[in-house]
């Protein structure tokens, strides 16, 4: 409850330390606006519409009819304060509008004014407010300072999830022509090219071939990364960052080695070459559905039997929780396997069957901890048991690495802190809020590094990996201290070299 006086306490960092309130501290933090072209490509108005007020209220009314969560959450908050110290952006900035309840109130005050009896007749009493330009401005700032990580919803006595509120807020903003460039431009690329990066089929093919050569040079085993192979058993859908970014690509190499070791028939699709689904970030069911349908199309075209997702946090949310809704039913796939399946589930299955061999000492230079990515932790599951999303990645890591240490209990599992870059915030102009939002996680990491000599952190989310590579140097870690889980698998896995005719038999 109290602000800390710098230097007063021991040097130990407290990830949960509550800052003093700094009203307006982050009011100016806004992402760049989407251009008219990017807006129109998604069916949104190109720029702020003339009667934006009416359009916004009408859109809010529509969402209230379509989404029970929004209605219940707007009605049920009692302002108890349980959530006020739970958001990493509040902890990192002290801006009171980054307290989950205050963020919700930005939307709730307008809801009350236009949709409730008390707000219409006693606005002052219940904090109801007209929708003004200033309110819209606040929405644009603060709904883009929510990474939709759901940490607040864990602690709310009614489970109010601010992610649902910020998604609705962004949807209304899109409807009046005030979209965000980063998300909307990327969604456009998925529709036209098939992935967030805009990597076309030929570029993708040569990238994968390049990786095959690298692996063979490295370990002498011809591990393949097949593209668009009809009749393959498994379709791998992975975030496009896996095709080139560090440490993502080392994760992709890890998946390929696991598939190779299992002798699996698998393929990547150039049409659905993206696991990420930014439709979720902008709260649009329709956009999320269109992106998801590409995966269905690809699975049907290639005639695969299974779908496996690579390491990506929000993608796994859309896959695990929404894919069946958005693009199902998947009655054409092999029903003996989970639909869809996470690459960690796939690898863990093989480990349990004893189908994979490891040399753990290959990771002995690494003292490791694991970052639970927010969407995986609080919006999905792995395996048969609740909580498998925490256990399975850790079980894999402990299988391939000798030195593993968890961070403080109140900063992991379902209480994990967001990396600071999720929810459509992973764009350079938001670097300030991203860095501030990362501080609770970084403090927890710093502590485990001091206590146990931890040198590296693994994650299974493309956004987390990119964000941490950017943020960790500020906290005294190398930018390559963030690792893919399957990168560690890749380091330790033992693959049989093919027998060659002139192989000397040593």
């Amino acid at each position, binding site marked *: 409850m109290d602000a800390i006086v710098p230097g007063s306490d021991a040097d130990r960092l407290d990830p949960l330390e509550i800052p003093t309130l700094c009203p307006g501290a982050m009011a100016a933090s806004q992402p760049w606006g989407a251009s008219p072209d990017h807006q129109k490509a998604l069916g949104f108005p190109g720029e702020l519409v003339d009667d934006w007020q009416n359009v916004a209220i009408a859109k809010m009314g529509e969402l209230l009819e379509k989404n029970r969560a929004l209605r219940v959450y707007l009605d049920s908050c009692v302002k108890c304060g349980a959530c006020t110290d739970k958001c990493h952006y509040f902890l990192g900035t002290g801006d009171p509008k980054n307290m989950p309840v205050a963020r919700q109130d930005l939307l709730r005050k307008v809801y009350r004014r236009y949709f409730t009896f008390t707000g219409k007749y006693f606005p002052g009493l219940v904090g109801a407010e007209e929708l003004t330009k200033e309110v819209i401005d606040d929405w644009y700032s603060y709904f883009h300072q929510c990474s939709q990580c759901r940490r607040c919803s864990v602690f709310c006595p009614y489970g109010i999830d601010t992610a649902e509120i910020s998604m609705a807020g962004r949807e209304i903003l899109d409807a009046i022509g005030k979209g965000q460039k980063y998300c909307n431009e990327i969604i456009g690329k998925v529709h036209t090219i098939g992935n967030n990066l805009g990597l076309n089929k030929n570029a993708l093919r040569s990238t994968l071939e390049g990786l095959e050569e690298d692996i063979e040079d490295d370990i002498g085993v011809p591990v393949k990364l097949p593209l668009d192979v009809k009749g393959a058993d498994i379709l791998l859908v992975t975030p496009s960052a896996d095709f080139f970014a560090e440490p993502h690509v080392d994760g992709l190499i890890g998946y390929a080695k696991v598939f190779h070791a299992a002798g699996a028939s698998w393929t990547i699709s150039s049409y659905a070459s993206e696991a990420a689904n930014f439709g979720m970030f902008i709260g649009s069911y329709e956009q999320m559905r269109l992106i998801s349908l590409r995966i269905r199309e690809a699975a049907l075209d290639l005639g695969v039997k299974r779908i496996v997702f690579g390491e990506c946090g929000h993608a796994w949310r859309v896959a695990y929780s929404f894919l069946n*809704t958005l693009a199902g039913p998947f009655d054409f796939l092999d029903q003996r396997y989970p639909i869809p399946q996470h690459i960690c589930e796939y690898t863990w299955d093989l480990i349990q069957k004893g189908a994979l061999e490891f040399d753990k000492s290959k990771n002995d230079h690494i003292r490791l901890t694991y970052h639970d990515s927010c969407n995986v932790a609080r919006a999905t599951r792995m395996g048969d048991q609740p909580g498998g999303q925490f256990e399975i990645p850790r079980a894999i890591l402990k299988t391939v690495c000798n030195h593993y240490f968890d961070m403080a209990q109140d900063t992991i599992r379902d209480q994990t802190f967001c990396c600071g870059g999720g929810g459509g915030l992973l764009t350079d102009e938001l670097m300030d809020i991203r860095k501030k939002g990362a501080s609770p996680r970084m403090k927890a990491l710093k502590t485990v590094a001091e206590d146990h000599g931890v040198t590296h952190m693994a994650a299974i989310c493309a956004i987390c990996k990119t964000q941490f590579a950017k943020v960790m140097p500020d906290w005294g870690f190398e930018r390559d201290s963030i690792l893919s889980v399957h990168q560690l698998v890749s380091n330790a896995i033992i693959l049989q070299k093919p027998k060659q005719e002139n192989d000397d038999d040593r």
Partner: protein
Amino acid sequence: MLTTIYACLFYGATAIFLAGMVLRITRFARTPAPLKIPTMPAPTTKSGVAYRLLREVTVFESLFRANKWIWAFGWIFHVALAVVLIRHLRYFVQPVPSLLALMQPLGVLAGFAMVAGLAGLWGRRLIVPRIRYITGPSDHLMLALLVAIGCSGLLMKFVAHTDIVAVKTFFLGLMRFDIQPLPSDPILLVHLGLVATLMIVFPFSKLVHAAGVFFSPSRNQVDDSRERRHLAPWAAKLEADRAR
């Protein structure tokens, strides 16, 4: 005259409370939840969800994890309120069941606990900067209303007694549409007036959280999205144009 006013007040308040809550609940129930969004880890069965909700409404599980002070004050207030309400049943049933008669001293104790819990919650609203920031006039008014109801009730028990037999006759009469005279003690009139106000305000205020908690998708959904396809009616219509 006074009796008539209070009789009308209670008929009106009851009607508004019931109609308002039915309206709210039907609205919650009729609005579809398009996506599976339980806060994970979540139960994988319906009985598991029932148990999760039971824990939320009896021991305030999530709030306990969030903040021990809010939990302690909030839980004491709610449990005490429940006990006080049960105690008050004696004014609505004749004869009084022996269990209800036996728990009366506990009910009185709960009256104090209720006011203490409310005072704790109110104190936090005034003292903790974060909670002061999110507190509005209606939040103070609601607390004032509840504290005033509790205090006026305790005053009647310990300071200025009212003719409780006549009060009971009045309420038994109300329930049979047979209006009996209500004593005109000022504290009683304040107490009853505030209770009627609370009933009227209930469906239009944050007090609907009492119903909201059962309709919260993050708490009431089963984690089974891979096994069962969940599709809202409006979303099903989108599928008409789907090629395959």
